[in-house]
C-alpha cells in the first residue's frame, strides 16, 4: 500500500552504464583482424598454465606505427608477483 514511498531503483541508468562499458570495449576490438579474440583466448589459456590471471588481464591490439601495423600484447600479472620475462 505504501509502495509509492519506496524509492524506485533506477534500472535504466544501470543499463546505460553497462552498455557504455561493453560497447566501448567492443569498439576497440572492431576493425582489427578477426583472429584477435581467438589469439587473446589462446594466450590467456597458455599463461594460465603458469600464472592465475583474470580474463581481462591479456590485451591484444593491432596499433598503427607509421607504415607498420604492430601487434601489441600486454599481460597484467596479479599484484604481489614479479614478471620474469
Amino acid at each position, binding site marked *: 500500500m505504501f509502495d509509492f514511498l519506496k524509492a524506485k531503483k533506477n*534500472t*535504466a541508468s544501470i543499463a546505460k552504464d*553497462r*552498455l557504455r562499458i561493453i*560497447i566501448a570495449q*567492443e569498439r576497440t576490438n572492431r576493425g582489427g583482424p578477426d583472429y584477435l579474440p581467438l589469439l587473446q583466448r589462446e594466450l590467456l589459456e597458455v599463461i594460465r598454465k603458469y600464472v592465475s590471471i583474470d580474463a581481462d588481464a591479456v590485451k591484444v591490439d593491432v596499433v598503427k606505427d607509421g607504415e607498420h601495423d604492430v601487434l601489441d600484447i600486454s599481460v597484467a600479472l596479479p599484484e604481489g608477483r614479479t614478471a620474469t620475462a
Partner: protein
Amino acid sequence: MAEIIVVTSGKGGVGKTTSSASLACGLARRGKKVVVIDFDVGLRNLDLIMGCERRVVYDFVNVTQGEASLKQALIKDKRFDNLFVLAASQTRDKDALTKEGVEKVLKDLADDGFDYIICDSPAGIEKGAFLAMYFADQAVVVVNPEVSSVRDSDRILGLLDSKTRHAEDGESIKAHLLLTRYNPQRVDGGEMLSVKDVEEVLGLKTIGVIPESGEVLNASNKGEPVILDMESNAGQAYDDAVARLMGEERPMRFTQLEKKGFFSKIFGG
C-alpha cells in the same frame, strides 16, 4: 538518382519489417516512387505486413536468377500507384542471393526511375543482412530501448562503417536511429532507457521515436502499415520520421509522459 535505404538492427523482432513497410508507404504518400524489398530469404514476411501476400507470384531470387523479369516480380500496392513490393524467396538455400545479382536488380530499379529503394534486412549479421546493407546510401537502425537491442545495433554500426560499398570507397553512410516500442511512462519511472540515453551510447541522431502501441499489432493483423492509421500515435510518429528522412525538421512527439488533467483522471479520458 535512387536513394537506397537499408532498414536494419542486428537483433530480431525489434520492428524492422513494420518500419520498412511504414517508411515505404509514407514516402509513397508523399508522391515518391518507392520499392520495398524483403531481403529475408527463407522467411518472407514483408508481404504480410504490406497486405499483398496472396499476390506474390515471383520473388527477388527469381529475378536475380533470371527466372522472372523485374516487372513480373514487382507487386504494385493497392493503395498507392507509385509503391511496389519485391517479396523474399521462400527457398531454404541461403546462398540464393548473390552480390552481383542484388547489384543488377538495384541498378535496374534505379534506371526505372525509383526515387527510394527500401531494403528490409533480415536479423543477424550473416549474408542476407550483409547484402541488404552493402549498396545502401543511408541506414535506418531500428532499436528497442533495451540492452541487447542497443548492443546489437552497435555491431551493425560497425559493419555499416566497414562492409558497405560506400565504406570500401572511403566514404561513410548516413545512419539514423529509429527507436521503437518506446514507453514514456517507463522511461519516466527510470525503468527504460530514454531517447537521449540511446543516442549517447550509440552516437546516433534520432529520426523517429515510435511509441509502444496496440495499433501496431492491429495494423499487422490487417496488413495495413500503421502509418496509414493517422489517428494512431504510432502512425503519426512514423509520418514524422518520413518527413525527417526527406529533410524536414519536426519536433519529437510522444516521448514525454502526458500529464493527465484533473478531469481526465476522474473520468478516465
